[in-house]
């Protein structure tokens, strides 16, 4: 203990002065809190752009070939406001690309990861502040390159967010748009790896004294494990991008089959490389969400996490398993049945740790003194949508079912229930929960609750509707399903889904309004408005430069809620670094 206190004192004398000048403070800042906000705003902007694209996609599916109202003339002027097949293909390509790589990644991992990691483990900043800045500006460059791909001859990329060869090689996509896409994804990955190196080192090296691994908030575990997957598997995507770039620019034939005798490449090779990354990517995105929801459910149920160690074990198990299941994306590529069955079995095993997670969430809620604040509503919504999304994954993991469901809207509904529902819900929960710490003001509760209900209900209608039309046989990426007789009866259902989607889109204006209105004039937030014990709530809102005057010495876990020892203090929670006067050396509670 004394050694730990000394270590804390050793850090106290190295606080660099706060930077002066606009550029150093707000643009080229090396402060993790500023970089986190930069990532947040960049990601939210792209979330809006990707959302508008989703609305346009839904318009085409509801009213094929009808000019888009209001914005149609502006966006699709030459076609008279009608979304052409090429424009539609570009729309779903860029919608997926933007949402996964340029919206969720920067908001959750870049934004909240940056802002929260040092604060939650009791550090003054990331291990490598300059690398952190480089990570943001690399991401910014990636967004610039991606945006440029809209304005080149032959138009934006149209190979889908997965950019399967040969759609994405010079044969399928001769224009420079796809090349820019490849460069943008490479830069995006470089930014992610820089972040991962930083996050892992920060967690390994900069935890406050007493912050053992099993006292870390689940949010920190989520970002830590995500960073490990990022460091391991984003480079595999980079390799795919490098080879695709070579195929497009230098005339190699890694992904083009047999145009030169004896030198043919293989389009399936691209899929292997892509999904070797792509499946861990699913967990890269959802792990922080799991961590955030795990913490917040405990905070708002006023109870410790049910089975903290089991939860951490389950998260680690998912990370390990996520590396050996990618083949389930490729059941229909003619892989050996033996290999396919192995992938099927391993994929289904993932449902064991994920079920433990859900069990932990439900156990945390059980008989809790639940406070239904907006962040809690979004967490509860996340538990529900993750349950439905996860269960539909079992159908797709089964080879025989997948043969039928592959490339249908069932797949679209499944991954949107995870990515666009569970993830989006936890993303909103995180914004509502940490907004006071980030900006020093509270968000409006009434608008927040309205936003929740107008998001949660239509969102489920949209994606569960997609499950149904997928089961009915409608394929994904179809420009105009009404040209097929067997899909004609689905048009009313498609319209219904689209109307729910418009409502979902419109409801986000409530969030935008709430966000900016609260930013400008929300009620001032005190240091700990939610009455919880993790370290970020021990400092002012927003936190001062370099976070902690003295590095805290952590004495207990992150979820000491409804703690009997706190009763004498007149509250129901204990801080992680709070030393009780009755017992100067508190023991770890069972």
């Amino acid at each position, binding site marked *: 203990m004394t050694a*730990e206190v000394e270590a804390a004192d050793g850090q106290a004398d190295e606080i660099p002065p706060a930077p002066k000048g606009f550029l150093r403070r707000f643009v080229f800042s090396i402060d993790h809190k500023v970089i986190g906000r930069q990532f947040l705003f960049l990601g939210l902007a792209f979330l809006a752009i990707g959302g508008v694209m989703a609305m346009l996609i839904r318009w085409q599916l509801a009213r094929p070939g009808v000019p888009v109202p209001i914005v149609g003339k502006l966006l699709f002027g030459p076609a008279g406001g009608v979304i052409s097949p090429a424009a539609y293909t570009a729309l779903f390509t860029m919608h997926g690309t933007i949402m996964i790589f340029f919206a969720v990644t920067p908001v959750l991992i870049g934004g909240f990861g940056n802002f929260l990691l040092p604060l939650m483990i009791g550090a003054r900043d990331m291990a490598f502040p300059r690398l952190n800045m480089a990570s943001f500006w690399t991401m910014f460059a990636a967004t610039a390159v991606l945006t440029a791909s809209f304005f080149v001859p032959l138009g934006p990329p149209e190979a889908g967010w997965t950019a399967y060869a040969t759609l994405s090689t010079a044969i399928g996509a001769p224009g420079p748009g796809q090349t820019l896409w490849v460069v943008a994804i490479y830069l995006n990955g470089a930014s992610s*790896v820089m972040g991962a190196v930083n996050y892992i*080192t920060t967690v390994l090296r900069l*935890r406050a004294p007493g912050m053992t691994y099993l006292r870390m908030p689940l949010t920190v575990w989520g970002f830590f494990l995500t960073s490990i997957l990022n460091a391991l598997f984003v480079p*595999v995507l980079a*390799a795919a991008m490098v080879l695709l770039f070579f195929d497009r620019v230098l005339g190699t034939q890694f992904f083009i089959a047999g145009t030169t005798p*004896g030198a043919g490449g293989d389009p399936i090779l691209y899929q292997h*490389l892509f999904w070797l990354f792509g499946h861990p990517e699913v967990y890269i995105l959802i792990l922080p969400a799991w961590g955030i929801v795990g913490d917040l459910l405990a905070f708002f149920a006023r109870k410790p996490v049910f089975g903290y160690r089991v939860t951490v074990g389950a998260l680690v198990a998912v990370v390990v398993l996520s590396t050996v299941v990618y083949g389930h994306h490729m059941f229909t590529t003619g892989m050996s049945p033996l290999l396919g069955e192995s992938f099927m079995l391993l994929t289904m095993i993932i449902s064991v740790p994920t079920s433990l997670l859900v069990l932990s969430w439900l156990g945390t809620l059980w008989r809790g003194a639940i406070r239904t604040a907006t962040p809690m509503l979004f967490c509860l919504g996340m538990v529900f949508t993750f349950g439905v999304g996860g269960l539909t994954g079992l159908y797709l993991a089964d080879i025989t079912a997948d043969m039928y469901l592959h490339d249908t809207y069932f797949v679209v509904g499944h991954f949107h229930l995870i990515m666009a529902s569970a993830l989006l819900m936890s993303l909103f929960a995180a914004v509502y929960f940490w907004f006071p710490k980030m900006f020093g003001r509270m968000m409006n509760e009434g608008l927040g609750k309205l936003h929740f209900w107008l998001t949660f209900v239509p969102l489920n209608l949209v994606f569960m509707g997609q499950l149904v039309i997928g089961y009915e046989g409608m394929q994904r990426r179809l420009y105009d399903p009404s040209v097929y007789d067997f899909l004609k009866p689905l048009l009313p259902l498609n319209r219904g889904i689209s109307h729910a989607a418009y409502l979902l889109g419109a409801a986000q204006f409530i969030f935008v309004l709430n966000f900016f209105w609260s930013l400008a004039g929300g009620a001032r937030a005190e240091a700990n408005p939610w009455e919880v014990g993790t370290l970020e709530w021990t400092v002012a809102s927003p936190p001062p430069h370099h976070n902690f005057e003295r590095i805290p010495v952590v004495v207990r876990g992150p979820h000491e809620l409804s703690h009997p020892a706190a009763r004498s203090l007149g509250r129901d929670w204990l801080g992680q670094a709070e030393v009780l006067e009755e017992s100067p050396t508190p023991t770890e509670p069972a």
Partner: protein
Amino acid sequence: MTPAPATASRRREIDAQVGLVIFLGATAMLFAALLLAYAIVRSEAPGWPPAGAPPFPRGAAAANTLALVAASLALRRGWARAAFAFGAAFLAAQALLWRHLVSIHLGPAAGALGEVFFALSALHALHVLGGLFALAPTGSRRLRLLTIYWDFVLVIWVVVYVAVCLL
């Protein structure tokens, strides 16, 4: 976490080493994925080396290795400028090798052997270039980190050479 009794600067140096090792792990995954692609291309080819491909100039590629070995050794002795010169020499020699390969019909667009070597060696060269940028403004404090990095670049090159040129 072992509570380091050391000074803040020593602590930061260990931080940097930990970060570098994680970064090199990520870089190793990049090359592992490229080598996987090579293994698949090769296993699917009807024969290897591909029919009609000229013999690979192994000697020239092996000679380039010496420049990287020299750079690593120089860094161990603290000769940053010499290491920079050897690293730059390696890049120049690689550029000559690439030109020669294109001229003997082993270029990136001339079949499987050429494309594999170009993809791997070009990515490797980029990492050597990164090492040169890191060497340019060096102080003695970062020599340990640079030595780790240049050893890594050497190991990657040897693996690429053995896998593509010898096997």
